[in-house]
C-alpha cells in the first residue's frame, strides 16, 4: 500500500498539545506582557545587535511558516469556528455561574492564548481531516 493511502489512527491529545506548544512558544516568544519577550529584548537597547537580528529573522520565518500552514488548513471559516468555540466556552463558564459576563476582562494573555490556539488547531487540523474522511490537504507546488 502506498504511503499516501495509509490512514493510521491518531493520538489527538499529544498531537494537538505538541503543535499548540510550538505555536505558543513562537507567539509568546515574540511578545508577552511579562517583560521577557523578543519585543522587550529588542526595545531594551542593550546586548548584541546581530544576535537580535538572527533571533528576529528566525521568529519571522517560524511565524510565517506556522501561520501559512495553519491558514491553509482551516482558513477564515476555521478561525471563526475556533473563536466561536472560545466565545462559547466563556458563555458556558458564565452559565455555570463561575463569574458574571460583565466581569469578563479580556487581557493580553487571553488574546495571546487565543492566537496560539488558532495556530495550533490550524496546524493539527489536517490530521483530523485525514483520519475522519481520508482527505489529504495537498499543496500544489509551482
Amino acid at each position: 500500500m502506498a504511503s499516501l493511502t495509509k490512514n493510521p489512527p491518531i493520538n489527538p491529545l499529544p498531537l494537538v498539545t505538541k503543535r499548540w506548544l510550538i505555536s505558543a512558544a513562537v507567539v509568546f516568544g515574540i511578545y508577552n506582557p511579562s517583560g521577557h519577550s523578543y519585543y522587550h529584548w529588542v526595545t531594551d537597547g542593550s546586548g548584541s545587535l546581530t544576535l537580535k537580528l538572527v533571533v528576529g529573522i528566525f521568529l519571522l520565518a517560524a511565524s510565517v511558516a506556522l501561520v501559512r500552514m495553519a491558514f491553509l488548513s482551516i482558513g477564515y471559516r476555521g478561525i471563526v469556528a475556533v473563536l466561536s468555540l472560545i466565545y462559547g466556552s466563556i458563555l458556558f463558564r458564565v452559565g455555570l455561574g463561575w463569574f458574571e459576563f460583565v466581569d469578563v476582562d479580556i487581557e493580553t494573555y487571553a488574546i495571546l492564548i487565543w492566537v496560539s490556539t488558532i495556530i495550533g488547531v490550524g496546524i493539527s487540523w489536517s490530521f483530523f481531516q485525514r483520519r475522519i474522511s481520508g482527505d489529504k490537504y495537498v499543496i500544489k507546488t509551482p
Partner: protein
Amino acid sequence: MHEFNWLSYLLRWVASILLVLATYNPFGFSYWDWLTHDGGYASLKVLAGVALLILHIVATVSTTRSLGIIGIGLLTAFYGAVAWLLVDHNLLDLNDPRMFALTGLLILAAVYGMGLSWSHIRNELSGQVHSIDVTNLTPI
C-alpha cells in the same frame, strides 16, 4: 512507517554540503579545479559533470518547489544573519576571500538541505502534502 527525524535532516544537509563543495570549493580540490587545471580524462569529466548537474537540478528544483521564493529569501536572510553573528564575535574572518567563498557555498548548501527537507517537515508538522501536478508539467 518511516518518520522524518533530525538524522534525516542532518543527512540531507551533509549531502548538500558534499554536493556543493564537490562542485566548487576555494581550496583547489573540486570538480571545477579538476576541469580547469588538469588535462585529459575528457570522457570522465563529462560523466562527472552530468552527474553533478543532475544532482544540482534535483536539489534546486525541490528547493524552489517546497520553499518557494519567500522561503528561500527568509532562509538566506537567516543564514546570512548567522554568518554576520559569527563575524561579529570574531569566529569568522570574511576578509579572507577563501572564507568568504566558503561561507557563501555553505549558505547555498544549507538552503539546499532545508529545501530537500521542508516537504517532510511540513508533512510531519501540519499533515499537509506537497504535490507535483504531472498533467501540466511546468519547467520547474
